[in-house]
């Protein structure tokens, strides 16, 4: 099937890419940095810095402080009120709790003041229940009551999943989209603008040979780059891959093909280098937000969700996540595979209909 001129052109495309060191560096840098930040943080939040002023110095206040300190969510900073207020203004503290001097008095309700910046109000709403809970447990100990209820949270998926495990397939899907679009649409428009395409078509090479050479070259390049990101995540960040890696790569290869055909469509729609940038942005940016790469699709407004689910990037990210995180086979994600195939058909149709090779030459 592959003839020598075609293979040689494929080799040249890979060679050109490998010599563009700067591009390789930056295309790998972004995903590595994002994964690195999330991975090194271990998916956990930094403790919240809380200032604490204790005017009562009673047993009860000490017990309350001790309980709060034991909670990993908080980092307690005990000092006098003036000093802490300064720190709050500077932004070194999120909030200050002021325990009044009548805290030891069990005969009346003690009013604990919470000082905070208005901008932090949402965040404080989230912390308030924990402080309340701590107060209640201190109260119970004093009144020697046994709590009536307790809430135990269990992980339904029965394996340790971190945000990183969620993020990795999405980042890889996002990366393969960018690389494929850049490799087809942008390349073709650039080659056309500079007259390189015309020069190639002076020789007896056929458009199909040219397209298949680009597709094969990009496939090799993208698989290489994804393997690097994958190894980085696997060896340095300790991500969990539950499913089969070969199934994952099968999905990746089909996805690369899909984004390449869509990229060719973009390159065919765009007549100039500027317009290819605009059209590619219109294609890429909404997908970053709407396709569940960084956040689950369920967090989007309900009316957008059905639309989000048919976006090429959503289909790919979801299929990759199902395989890598949930251990499904590529047959089990057949709906996604059908979705990818439909997009390949659309991309092939649009690009072959719109890409006028004679015009490219002229």
């Amino acid at each position, binding site marked *: 099937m592959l003839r020598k001129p075609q293979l*040689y052109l494929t080799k040249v495309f890979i060679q050109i890419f490998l010599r563009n060191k700067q591009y390789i560096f930056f295309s790998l840098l972004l995903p590595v940095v994002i994964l690195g930040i999330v991975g090194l943080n271990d998916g956990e939040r930094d403790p919240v810095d809380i200032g604490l002023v204790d005017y009562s110095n009673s047993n009860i206040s000490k017990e309350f402080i001790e309980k709060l300190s034991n909670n990993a969510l908080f980092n307690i900073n005990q000092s006098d009120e003036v000093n802490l207020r300064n720190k709050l203004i500077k932004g070194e503290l999120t909030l200050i709790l002021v325990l009044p001097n009548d805290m030891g008095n069990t005969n009346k309700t003690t009013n604990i003041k919470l000082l905070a910046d208005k901008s932090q109000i949402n965040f404080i709403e989230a912390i308030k229940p924990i402080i309340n809970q701590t107060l209640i447990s201190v109260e119970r100990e004093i009144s020697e009551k046994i709590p009536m209820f307790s809430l135990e949270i269990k992980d339904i998926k029965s394996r340790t999943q971190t945000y990183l495990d969620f993020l990795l397939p999405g980042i890889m899907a996002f990366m393969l989209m960018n690389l494929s679009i850049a490799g087809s649409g942008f390349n073709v428009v650039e080659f056309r603008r500079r007259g390189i395409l015309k020069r190639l078509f002076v020789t007896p090479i056929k458009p199909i040979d040219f397209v298949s050479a680009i597709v094969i070259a990009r496939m090799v390049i993208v698989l290489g780059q994804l393997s690097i990101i994958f190894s980085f995540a696997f060896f340095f960040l300790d991500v969990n891959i539950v499913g089969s890696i070969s199934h994952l790569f099968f999905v990746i290869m089909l996805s690369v093909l899909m984004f390449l055909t869509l990229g060719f469509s973009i390159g065919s729609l765009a007549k100039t280098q500027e317009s290819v940038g605009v059209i590619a942005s219109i294609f890429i940016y909404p997908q970053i937000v709407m396709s569940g790469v960084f956040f689950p699709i369920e967090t989007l407004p309900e009316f957008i969700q059905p639309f989000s689910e048919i976006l090429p990037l959503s289909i790919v990210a979801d299929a990759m996540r199902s395989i890598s995180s949930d251990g499904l086979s590529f047959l089990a994600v057949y709906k996604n595979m059908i979705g990818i195939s439909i997009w390949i058909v659309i991309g092939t149709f649009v690009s072959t209909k719109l890409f006028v090779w004679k015009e490219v030459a002229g």
Partner: protein
Amino acid sequence: MAIIKASNLVKKYKNPEEKLKTFNAVDGVSLSIKTGDIFGILGPNGAGKTSTLEMLEGLKDIDEGSALINSIDVTNNPYEIKKIIGVQLQANEYFDNMTLTELLKLFIALYSSSNDPLELLKRVKLQDKANANANELSGGQKQRFSIASALVNNPLVLFLDEPTTGLDPQAKRNIWDLILELNGAGMTIVLTTHNMEEAEFLCHRIAIMDYGKIIAEDSPKNLIMKHAPNKIREIKYGNMEDVFIALTGHGLRD
């Protein structure tokens, strides 16, 4: 014997002012070019020179008329045509980050030819630049490299689209010598140019085009005899520039 025969070639383009209308950029051009000739197509900008060339090269569809090169029909067998012709385009950009040798190897592979890249570079006196990138070359060197890349398939016909435009006199002379040398070895050469001196110096025959039509065709000498203004004809010392202006007028073209 004519190696190129074209009859009534027409190329239509969309009218830039009225999108629905077309105009004929090439309007019924017929050519007969003899084997071993250097044939020049002259004309102001927009006269249809490049479009005519690109139809012959199989790069543009022939809207009406027909063309044969070495008895092969261009419309029916564009890929067979491409195997026997060499083309130097007006724009000569190549892939970045590739040396001249590597670029020639690519073209050799695309033609499944067996030429030696170094030999080709020697023919255009670029052997010293074998490991340079195309974008490091001067204007004249770039044109010579373009010609080298057009020779990889040992073409019967070499098409050169404005081969010396923008070159300094030395580089221009250098290209002329190369063209004469290739022609001396038997290659038929078709070139377009604005440069009258070039047409006069190189070409065996010249066709002058304007508004998509050939308005005169003959040897440079005969064209001067026929069209140069009288007083110059009397002393038999006219040049092609006089012919050109006499035929196409003084009006500026874009």
